[in-house]
């Protein structure tokens, strides 16, 4: 029992500690591609520490929702990330929520974040919230359809069980899974406010979705919001890794060596995902806001097609 809790604790600590590193790594890759030196890898940690030490400035018109939201966003995102298998399957709390619950936890984080965007009553908070709600209205159903697809292949909505099924290689190549992979990448880009949907590096009015929503935050509140954003990026990277490259995941009740190998491969997979994201981001342009629904609509359609194929192919 103690050992089980320890393994779960390692998972929770791992996702929290690696998250800023992944963000820093993506920035570094992008800078290198642009022939810049870029900020140090550990810069996100320093940013968080510095922000925590600063005083928080809160607008006069803000209510308790504004002050509570960063902690709720962080908590919901972190709990969701802890439910995604990173280095091992079958962890002790993995049964407490499936992929639908993970999607809904991210929805809870978004609910708090968008309310906070409206709380101060500024126009930038409103514009960010408005666009975020539109994107979510398409990304969330796409995510549910992806869940259906992978769950029907694996016979379970439980992420740990899905990863274990994928690990055994009996699945083979499936058209549905390929559709789900593309859809999940699109959803991941949109949910993490990356190019081509949003640009995390600017404060330009035209690109502002996530950044506009959190514009009023400062100090420790901003630190929590930034940390939550990093954890969310890591969550989607882990999700893609455990669903489509489960290689190296330690099965339940393995030895210390398997767990060590699991952590090692996990870090390699994250680095791969981060490098691909960096390269992708600098080789593509940002979209107009009203193009994004088409982009996300593709994800929804692909998810629907993947699920439909599986519904139909059951009887063939």
């Amino acid at each position, binding site marked *: 029992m103690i050992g089980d809790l320890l393994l779960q604790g390692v998972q929770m600590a791992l996702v929290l500690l690696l998250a800023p590193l992944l963000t820093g790594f993506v920035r570094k890759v992008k800078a290198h591609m642009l022939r810049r030196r870029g900020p140090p890898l550990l810069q996100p940690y320093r940013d968080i520490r510095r922000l925590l030490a600063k005083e928080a400035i809160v607008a006069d018109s803000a209510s308790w929702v504004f002050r509570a939201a960063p*902690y709720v966003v962080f908590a919901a995102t972190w709990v969701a990330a802890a439910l995604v298998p990173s280095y091992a399957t079958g962890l002790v709390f993995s049964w407490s929520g499936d992929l639908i619950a993970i999607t809904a936890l991210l929805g809870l984080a978004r609910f708090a974040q968008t309310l906070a965007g*409206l709380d*101060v009553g*500024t126009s930038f908070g409103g514009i960010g919230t408005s666009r975020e*709600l539109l994107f979510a209205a398409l990304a969330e159903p796409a995510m549910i*359809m992806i869940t*259906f697809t992978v769950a029907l292949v694996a016979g379970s909505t439980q992420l740990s069980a899905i990863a274990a099924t994928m690990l055994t290689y009996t699945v083979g190549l499936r058209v549905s899974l390929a559709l789900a992979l593309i859809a999940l990448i699109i959803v991941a880009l949109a949910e993490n406010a990356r190019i081509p949907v949003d640009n995390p590096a600017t404060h330009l009015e035209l690109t502002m979705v996530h950044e506009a929503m959190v514009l009023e935050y400062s100090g*420790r509140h901003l630190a929590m919001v930034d940390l939550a954003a990093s954890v969310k990026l890591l969550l989607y990277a882990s999700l893609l890794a455990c669903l489509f490259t489960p290689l190296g995941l330690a099965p339940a009740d393995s030895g210390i060596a398997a767990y060590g190998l699991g952590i090692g491969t996990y870090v390699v997979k994250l680095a791969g995902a981060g490098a691909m994201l960096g390269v992708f981001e600098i080789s593509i342009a940002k979209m107009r806001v009203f193009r994004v629904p088409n982009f996300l609509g593709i994800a929804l359609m692909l998810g629907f097609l993947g699920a439909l194929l599986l519904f139909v192919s059951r009887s063939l």
Partner: protein
Amino acid sequence: MSALVFIAWSIAALTGIALLAAVAGRDIRASAPVYGACLAVSAAACIAALAALPAGPVALHLPLGLPGIGTDLRLDALSAAFLVIVDLGAAAASLYAIGYGAHEPAPGRVLPFYPAFLAAMNLVVIAGDAYSFLFGWEAMSLASWALVMAHHREEANARAGYIYLVMASFGTLALLLGFGLLAQGAGGFDFAAIAAAHPTAGTASVVLLLVLIGAGSKAGLAPLHVWLPLAHPAAPSHVSALMSGVMTKVAIYGFIRIAFDLLGPALWWWSMPVLVAGALTAALGVLHALMERDLKRLLAYSTIENIGIIFLALGLALAFRANAMPAAAALALTAALFHAFNHMLFKSVLFFGAGAVLGATGERDIERLGGLIHRMPVSSACFLLASVAIAALPPLNGFASEWLAFQAIFVSPALPQWGLKLLVPAAGTLLALAAALVAACFVRAFGILYLGRPRTAAAEGAHETDRFSLAAMIILSALCVAAGLFPGVVIDALAPAVRLLTGGAMPVQGRSAWHTITPMAGASGSYNGLMIGLFVALVTFGSAALIHALAGRRTRRSRPWDCGYPNPAATAQYTAASLSQPIRRVFAAIVLRSREVVDMPAPGTLRAASVTKTIHDPAWDAIFAPLTAAVGRVAGRLNQFQFLTIGQYLGLIFALLVLLLIVVGVMP
């Protein structure tokens, strides 16, 4: 005394209160005693129903009503489950009304009908024959119509009442025809006789469609939903809560009683119209809610959306039952019943919150409010909680029931029919889309209403509502949390009703460790509301405490930043219309034919610029507008008969006489 006798007595007591209120109701001082008595009776009935949940069916024959027929009452697990929903909602609304009803301008138009409305809803749920069922159904419609017309001097209310009356009569007509067909085969109106005599497949199919129309129109199923967003908001807020939270559930009870119990074995295609109507209702309802600026109408549209979810789950249950998959049918039916219970809880809180806002500001238009969280701290917190619950977010109850619905869809590839294989994934997509849009809808509702800065003087001068209203809101919000953290308790409580109708049951949840819920044996997934809730709460408070302890909690208040150019005018904030503009442009442009016309005067002209938005309800455009136009045309033609000469009238009567004689002569 058995629970059924107790419920029968409480119906009698409510009728008595209604009669007393008819005598003394014009005096506002009668308000608190009337509502207090309703609260006592409903709470007692709710406890009796809870106790009756696991008990077997009980029947009772009363020599009341039509001579020789009397009244049959019946209480089984399904009735008991819906009695809990009805009486819990009624008790909460009565508690709320002790405070809220004190400001009623016309108590004589509300007090007599309120207890009668409660009595009628109780009667429908325990009716044991078609006569008493239809009697209760009509009494429920009429009492609620009277309550809708309480403030009849407002023109919109009079129109709402008229449309409601027409639609209610239409729905009852469909039910009447359905019961007529059923009784023909059974040789009686007794439910036991009807259930024992299985109708032929053809008759049963016609009855199913009639019930879908009859019960669906009362519940707000598209395309028969058009009256609901007009009528529910027109009534006083505690009655709105009852109509949305409870009366729609009585309609769902009617559908389940007939479709699952009285009709006997199901045909697989019955599930298709139910699934289609449910999925379309869910999507249409939430899109309308997202466009709405009247708070109570927004909530009414959201009711339509939830009814869609419930019917979608019921359609799945019908499909599974027809294919002899009792475990899956039990899962889908549990999802429907659980969601019906949940919707009663959170929709009541939301309407109570709307009533509190209405009482404090006199406004229902969210565009003219804002910043109320500072002036109404407790009711806003309850509204927020209910919003999170209705948006199906963990760890609250709305997520638990939607999770069950998604799990039921996840089992459905095992259905053999091709029609269902193609339909269910599409319905699932619409359900997922609706779930995401609901979250957007309630971010918009709560954000514009309670957050930001007040947009009018009325919003600035708001005050917290009275303590009875707050108590009702707090109790129901607490139940939302409890049902979210311990969904297994509710699922186990619903198990007898589910077993009665599907022959199967979900795994007993009470035995699982840590209150994890599993949808079926051979677990395909699991969810633990308690664990998720505990973790999120722990991390939220833990991280806040840790940061405050280690990094300090220095906070400075200042003007908003807003990129350096904050505009102090309250009108510079985002409005509800602008917040949902992207969604309107992407979704509603097609579904609701929403259009925006921007009128921008040329430079130099002094005319004000304006934006005109229009929205069309597809159901209204495709069905009701042509129908009313046709009725109008026919009536216009017939109008000519009023202005004939006496000779023409005599000629007409003679022609009719000849025609009738020919008919009599030709007929054998």
